[in-house]
């Protein structure tokens, strides 16, 4: 059970970084931490003590097989996270070119 709480704390740290930090790079690191916490959660509930890999062969008994689906979900989520982070880092670099700063309190052309 304590692992789930640690996972929740990790997610909260990520959310804190996104909401509270001023530096764009730190916000991006917050996004990465958040997505890792969700991936960790996916892996955690798919974990089984002494489980064996979900491969089927005819002369074996099906016992203690782990559920392969959470692992597949975690993999998909990692790939999606990679695409998102690549794009957001690209945008952050262009923002630095335009504004000359990573501080979001100084990047405020838009309001209303």
């Amino acid at each position: 059970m304590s692992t789930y709480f640690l996972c929740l704390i990790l997610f909260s740290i990520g959310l804190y970084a996104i909401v509270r930090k001023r530096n764009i790079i730190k916000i991006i690191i917050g996004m990465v931490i958040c997505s890792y916490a969700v991936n960790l959660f996916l892996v955690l509930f798919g974990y089984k003590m002494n489980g064996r890999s979900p491969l089927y062969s005819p002369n074996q008994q099906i016992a203690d097989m782990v559920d392969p689906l959470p692992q597949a979900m975690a993999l998909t989520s990692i790939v999606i996270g990679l695409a998102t982070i690549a794009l957001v880092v690209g945008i952050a670099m262009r923002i630095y070119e335009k504004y000359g700063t990573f501080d979001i309190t100084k990047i405020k052309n838009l309001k209303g």
Partner: protein
Amino acid sequence: MKIVPLFIILPLGAAFLISLYGKKKKRFCDIFSSLITFTLFLISVYTIFSVNTRELPFIYKVGGWIPPLGIPLVIDSLTAFMLLIVSFITFIINLYSVNYMEQFTAKNKFYTLFLLMLAGMNGVLISGDIFNLYVFFELASIASYALVAYGTQAEELEAAFKYMAMGVVGSLFILLGIAFLYSNYSTLNMADMAKTLTTQGVNKAVAFASVLFIVGFGLKAAIVPFHAWLADAHPAAPAPISAMLSGILIKSLGIYSLFRVFYNVLGANHSFLTLFMFLGTISIVTGGLLALGQTDLKRMLAYSSISQIGYVVLGLGLGTPMGIFGGLLHLFNHSAFKSLLFLNAGAVEYATKTRDINKLGGLRKKMPVTFNTSLIATMGISGIPPFNGFFSKLLIIFACIQSKHIGYGLWAIVGSILTISYFMKLQKNVFFGPLPKEHQETNEVPFLMKTSMVILSLVCIFGGLAALPRISKYFVKPAEKVLFEGKEYKNIVFKVVNEK
């Protein structure tokens, strides 16, 4: 049914081919992309007729796996209704972009992202598996983040970053909700999940996941506490993309996913419906009030979108047949007139190079087509009788009164008055009054832009006919039935699955 996967394959394949060959041949992207979107439009017309005459959904089993295990693609009446709207608006916007996007470089990249976004939206609509829905949701979202930043000027990048920061958190919430549901019910198939929920009973994880879904999908639908990204992202994007985001993206990714999950999978719970009605009403009033104070043309339209989406959420949240009918009809109408208004705003910007309504004026003589189509859209959105918005707003207000929610009905009327007031401000400042000196040389926009605006204005004029029983029998009524019957969805899907 063999045509079901075409909705994903065609735009994905076209995006790939355009990114490969589009750089050399300029006209190739325009023609090829228009051809693909037009084909999708024809297929969706065929689909909606065949689904509604058959009265059973079409199901495609990906890889031949039987549904509770494999991923099904399901087209029922609601999906077919949304697909028709998405493909129609996309085709019109594609025609418009042929001329409009000449201002930008790298048109082939624009079309690639445009078609990827379309593939994502179609995927969200036809997926029958909740994790698959999430994957397509992310595909459409990432394409839309990139498209908002497409101009790569300071404001565009800032808006895109703001949109991304919120969008990433929203999608993570959805994934977390899916993880909670899977860990409790060990299924991802939407119909199977609905079935397991009825047999095993609802536990606390479902309530928690519901809240996560409201935040995640509500963020994309721009319901009021989660609306902050929309007002920045819409003005920053190029005009066709603003029309696309406001016209269909917030509906297919936000409204459709939210209500599909709540009505058909989790079951429409009374307390959540009350929450939807409340959020919808708040959106109507807040969006309207914020729109009144804007001077940027597209930012005003963006706040107006928040207000109009509030009507859809209010109508669908009522949960009565009339409310759902009104909400879906307003969804269709809003996609027509709001896309048209954004295209008009794009045309004004194209001709005059400014969006500030205080610097504009007197354009009605110089740009007659833009002026007339925008007037029609304005009358549609404000609910002047023969135009389409009147019927849907009237139905939503009647449904509020019919289900004894008179307070919500009154706020809906207040929202309608707010709508007409800020649109009068817009019309007065942009098209009437004296023509400023610097805009004396303004010309009407090119032919294809005019054509697309005229087609959408025709929809605004005749869209009200969709409320007639004879037409709605093939269009809105079956979609309303899918949502109203809610939990019947699983039985229908399994009936079709077990047929063969």
